[in-house]
């Protein structure tokens, strides 16, 4: 008997696996394989178990009781980035997110959440991120270390720190000065809309300047902007990890926070997010809160969520004044391109900026490997994808990389610094803000540009 066969014997009980999903959703997959070339994990490993078709087939076979939930099977399912590139590629309209969600949910029922994480990682992920205050606190030491001029400190702590914390540290970019945005910012020029703005947790801790730029963009486009302080993490990480109750709790909290702005939820024309990883989950609040007392608010809230680029293009953006003479590339965050089909809007906005050259990026919508907490749960694959992305970017010769999701920014920045340093990674709103104000974005010097 082979080792493999042995491990199947000792695998988990098969209980009621895969029963939480409408079987028709499996049937939608006609096994054509057209999604294969789009799946980043399959492209790397070449193993169809790491492809959408394979994962659907595997999970279905497990649900049918035809295959055991062996460790191998789990490892293939866990390797999924949930980037949803397969949904974009699939001509049959397979709703893969239901399939992977069904797996994740069943797994949390079978064993403690995210079993591959050690206590520290789990602590960081699930205790830290919901509390924006604590997240900011926890990155503080690293911030200080960075500002102390690394060298011996990092080396020393490198020896003392557990590997996972070291990884966390590598992820971190230079952190900008924090901006305490007020709860309300008025429109600049004639008022065209009233919006709420989400800050995100990681984004606000790592890149407060992006939130500042977003608010500024909204103001310049004639929006009154409400930024309630009581808002919390969107719950995306929990949702992806199959922690439904926690996700619902956070969703309810956010509904409450925005319901309290003057005019309430109904008074808002839109609720703006600038994080492509958060907005798909925010747009699903209706579903997440379906069985919650907040269900009505949840639906209302979800219907109002818009990505910043999506919102501005719809509104009809005001043309910015200042040229930004740079060569840039745009990386499609999965949450935008695949989950929300938002591809052209950010490019349209950037096209308004004079002298900004947007070079084509090969595999621009291929996942960079950030994928929520993926760079911590699957560090190897994450790094492989990060390197691939960095290589593609470097090949274009662009100085600037723009992407609409904080996770991607962190990941791309890290891998560029490692392999192809000297490039600036930011959010399209930062370039747009620069084009409106003439001020250099944080950490980027545009030659011949304002302050």
């Amino acid at each position, binding site marked *: *008997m*082979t080792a*493999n*066969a042995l*491990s*199947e014997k000792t695998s988990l009980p098969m209980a009621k696996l895969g029963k939480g999903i409408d079987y028709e959703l499996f*049937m*939608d997959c*006609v*096994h*054509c*394989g*057209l*999604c*294969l*070339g*789009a799946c980043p994990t*399959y*492209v790397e*490993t*070449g*193993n*169809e*178990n790491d492809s959408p*078709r*394979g994962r659907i*087939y*595997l999970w279905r*076979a*497990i649900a049918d009781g*035809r*295959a*055991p*939930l*062996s460790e*191998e*099977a789990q490892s*293939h399912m866990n390797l999924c980035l949930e980037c949803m590139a397969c949904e974009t*590629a*699939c*001509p*049959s*309209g397979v709703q893969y997110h239901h399939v992977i969600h069904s797996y994740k949910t069943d797994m949390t029922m079978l064993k403690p959440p995210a079993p591959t994480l050690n206590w520290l990682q789990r602590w960081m992920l699930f205790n830290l991120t919901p509390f924006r205050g604590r997240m900011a606190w926890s990155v503080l030491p690293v911030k200080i270390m960075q500002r102390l001029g690394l060298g011996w400190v990092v080396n020393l702590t490198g020896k003392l720190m557990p590997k996972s914390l070291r990884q966390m540290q590598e992820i971190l970019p230079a952190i900008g000065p924090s901006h305490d945005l007020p709860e309300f910012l008025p429109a600049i020029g004639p008022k065209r809309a009233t919006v709420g703005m989400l800050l995100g947790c990681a984004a606000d801790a790592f890149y407060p300047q992006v939130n500042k730029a977003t608010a500024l963009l909204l103001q310049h486009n004639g929006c009154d902007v409400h930024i309630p302080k009581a808002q919390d993490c969107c719950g995306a990480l929990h949702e992806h990890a199959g922690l439904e109750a926690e996700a619902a709790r956070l969703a309810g909290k956010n509904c409450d926070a925005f319901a309290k702005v003057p005019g309430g939820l109904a008074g808002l024309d839109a609720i703006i997010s600038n994080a492509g990883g958060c907005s798909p989950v925010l747009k699903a609040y209706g579903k997440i809160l379906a069985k919650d007392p907040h269900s009505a608010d949840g639906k209302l809230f979800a219907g109002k969520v818009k990505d910043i680029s999506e919102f501005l293009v719809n509104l009809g953006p005001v043309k910015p004044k200042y040229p930004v003479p740079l060569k840039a590339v745009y990386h499609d965050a999965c949450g935008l391109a695949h989950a929300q089909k938002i591809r052209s809007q950010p490019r349209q906005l950037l096209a308004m900026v004079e002298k900004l050259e947007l070079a084509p990026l*090969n595999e621009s919508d291929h996942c960079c490997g950030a994928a929520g907490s993926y760079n911590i749960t699957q560090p190897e694959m994450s790094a492989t994808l990060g390197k691939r992305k960095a290589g593609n970017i470097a090949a274009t010769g662009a100085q600037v990389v723009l992407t609409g999701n904080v996770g991607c920014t962190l990941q791309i920045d890290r891998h560029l610094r490692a392999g192809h340093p000297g490039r600036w990674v930011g959010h399209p709103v930062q370039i747009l803000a620069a084009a409106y104000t003439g001020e250099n974005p944080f950490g980027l010097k545009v030659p011949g540009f304002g302050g």
Partner: protein
Amino acid sequence: MTATLLDEKTAILITHLTKIVGPDGLISSPAELMVYECDGYTMEKNRPEVVVFPRCTEEIVGVVKACNELGVPFLPRGSGTSLAGGCLPVGGGVIISLARMRKILEVDIRNRYALVEPGVINTWLTNRVKNDGWHYAPDPSSQGACTIGGNVATNSGGPHTLKYGVTVNHILGVELVLPDGRVIQIGGPVEEAPGYDLTGLVVGSEGTFGVVSKVWVRLVRNPQSVRTLLGIFESVDDATRTISEIIGAGIVPAALEMLDNLILGAVEEAFGFGFPLDAGAVLIMEVDGLETGIDDEAARIESIALKNKARKVSRANTEAERMLLWKSRKQAFGAVGRLAPSYCTQDGVVPRTRLPEMLRIMHDISKRHDIRIANIFHAGDGNMHPILLFDERDPAQVQRVMEASHEILDTCLKLGGSVTGEHGIGVEKIDFMPKLFSPDDLMAMTRVRQAFNPTGLCSPGKMLPTAGACSEPAAARQLKPGRRAPH
């Protein structure tokens, strides 16, 4: 053979193979193998014993030699998008996946060729050379996923093969690992070396001549200009007459694709492209070439369409519109799932002038068997993909679909056509081979296979109906319909 014996043999096989490709170069656990029990054709399933992922020619050679030593059958697999069961491991054995051989080894624009490993995905190659103004011409609808090796093995076509030809017209040579483990180069970047055109023979041999380990492909310059037209017709007849007349007028369009009313309804329901729901058929007509004169050519096509009672002919004015039109053509398949819980697609060919006749017969077949049939096809080539709609939970319908499919393919043959234009024989259509070819024809083909694959260990049970290769009765295997991707 008893189960334990088989296990022992498998264990030896795995030990052997692990030495060649390393522990992470193969899979052998039942759950993982499950995924490899079929390809795009799901009517028949069989699990391999092992799937190996060689990274270079030498590893393929090692695997093939090990299989020979142990007398285990093996077959190559690209992306497994075959719609004919080309990747079905008949009799089990080893699947040699080429998915880790994905390097574009050489691009030589001056000499108009590229050298690629077999696992390179079709579109990657074009992506690589498009900024230089070149492309790789064969464009199967599955091009975002299928491999060049798979394309070579099945001689793939696509919408633009009407003008540019199929895969074989674009392959200059291959490196082949023969079924006995010898490696030979056939053809190469220099054309027409003395000797038999083995390249032409290997293309389309469906993996029965060995494992293609490198491919020299021809690169083609992009046309200067393209015009894409959409013609809306009251009837399929009008549309097919238009096709004949366009060709008859000496115009060689880059593509001529047709969607009938049933498909249109589904597309519209799915994507809301704005096709008129009451149209009998639409034609996507594309011409390409020099900017000079291309508008004239487009105008000629337009007037031919209008003369044949097209309700409206519109032009894609921008590249974005053009892409949208093509997307609607390709997305059309996905929408079919909306029409019925199950469907089965065929790949028949008739001479294109017989399309109207064929469609009338098909209409009749559809009525007689009470099975709805949607049609989408490479009209310019006479290559049809009738999609039979049914519900597989109803055995009576399944039976009727089988009969209807059979009748359609028989009609194709009667009208002088073929039962496969691009998807291949594989295991699915193996029983049609005796209808297409005489025993003498088949004997000649068998003799050629004998030259490459004398032991028959490489891709057994494919392409040629050899006695003993299949255990299931022919009638049962022939036309089991099911939910399948059309092309």
